[in-house]
């Protein structure tokens, strides 16, 4: 089972390489330049609850769930949705975005887990 998973992963990595190669021809595509922002989830709250990112930049959000329960990062404005299991990490890429405020919330505890991405003009 584990072996098969590994094989699949290798295959998928190849696929990824392939798509990356193809797409790098179409657009200026680079991974190294992507800034990473860490958001912790603790007691059904986002820390920090407000993150600031520059406009027109792609950003990698690294969500670290410190709670034992799962949480779902959800934002209609950012068009993003992702489940983060308890005691797990997850990555979401957002942007490049025009300046403005983009609220997000935790779908499973929406009354407490609230936050927003503030995109500021450079």
């Amino acid at each position, binding site marked *: 089972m584990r072996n098969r998973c590994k094989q699949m992963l290798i295959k998928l990595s190849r696929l*990824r390489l392939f798509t990356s190669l193809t797409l790098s021809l179409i*657009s200026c595509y680079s991974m190294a330049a992507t800034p990473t922002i860490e958001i912790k989830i603790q007691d059904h709250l986002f820390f920090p609850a407000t993150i600031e990112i520059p406009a027109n930049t792609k950003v990698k959000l690294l969500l670290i769930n410190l709670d034992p*329960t*799962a949480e779902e990062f959800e934002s209609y404005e950012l068009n993003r949705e992702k*489940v983060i299991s308890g005691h797990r990490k997850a*990555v979401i*890429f957002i942007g490049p975005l025009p300046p403005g405020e983009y609220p997000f919330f935790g*779908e499973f505890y*929406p009354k407490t887990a609230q936050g927003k991405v503030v995109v500021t003009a450079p």
Partner: protein
Amino acid sequence: MFLNSVVLILQEILEAALLISVLLAFTRLRDVGHRWIVAAIIIGCLGAFLYALNMAQISEWFDYVGQEVTNAFIQLSIMLLLSIFAARHLGRPDHQPSQGHNREFILCMLFIVSLALTREVSEIFIYIGGAITDPSNVQPTLIGAGIGAGIGISAGVLIYYSLLGLPSKWIALTGLLLLSLVAGNMASQATLLLTQADWLPYSRILWDSSELLPENSVLGHLLYALIGYEATPSLYQGLGYVIGMLLILIGTKFTVWLNNAAPKS
């Protein structure tokens, strides 16, 4: 909790219901029996259970974007399967199918529905499993799930009977159009997931209709689930949608053309 639960479950169920009702209508047209759907639902739910159970692990693949990549992979597989299915089985309405052909027809649909249900129902399992960790959420979540599932299944039943109520020559054509929308929707969702995982680069927004018809409205949710409506779709999503639709339509058209071109024996 209630409204979120309704929305999520409605979306997943409605997506599945549209696919299933169209395929069931084709089953009725072919008169090959409806038993396969029971098998597909059982397999799909089992698959969904296993998928949801291992989601935490799967999520950490490929630098923590395994969830998106796997889902996108499933969506694209369904789209390809649908286009193969359409090309092999829906292109020849006058064709008298053989026994083996019928078996392939059923197997194809069984596979498509099981795969689609695996992803869709796993989202429901994960959602309900996560939401009811807070005891105060249990009642609203479950009632919401009931309402969402009720609306989704009802819509599926009505679509099925409306399709069968059409004049017979229109049934296949309308079913085909609906299938192409499903395939387009799958492709569009896959591109969105791949963008979220940074496997696809950002592409510009095609239009913004969030003022006109917000995604967060009842109609917006319904249209999202049925035809993959997005208030701010990206260029790749649009492209994915068009390619998905064309794969189905061209595939069938092509077989019709091939069939007409082939010498009649």
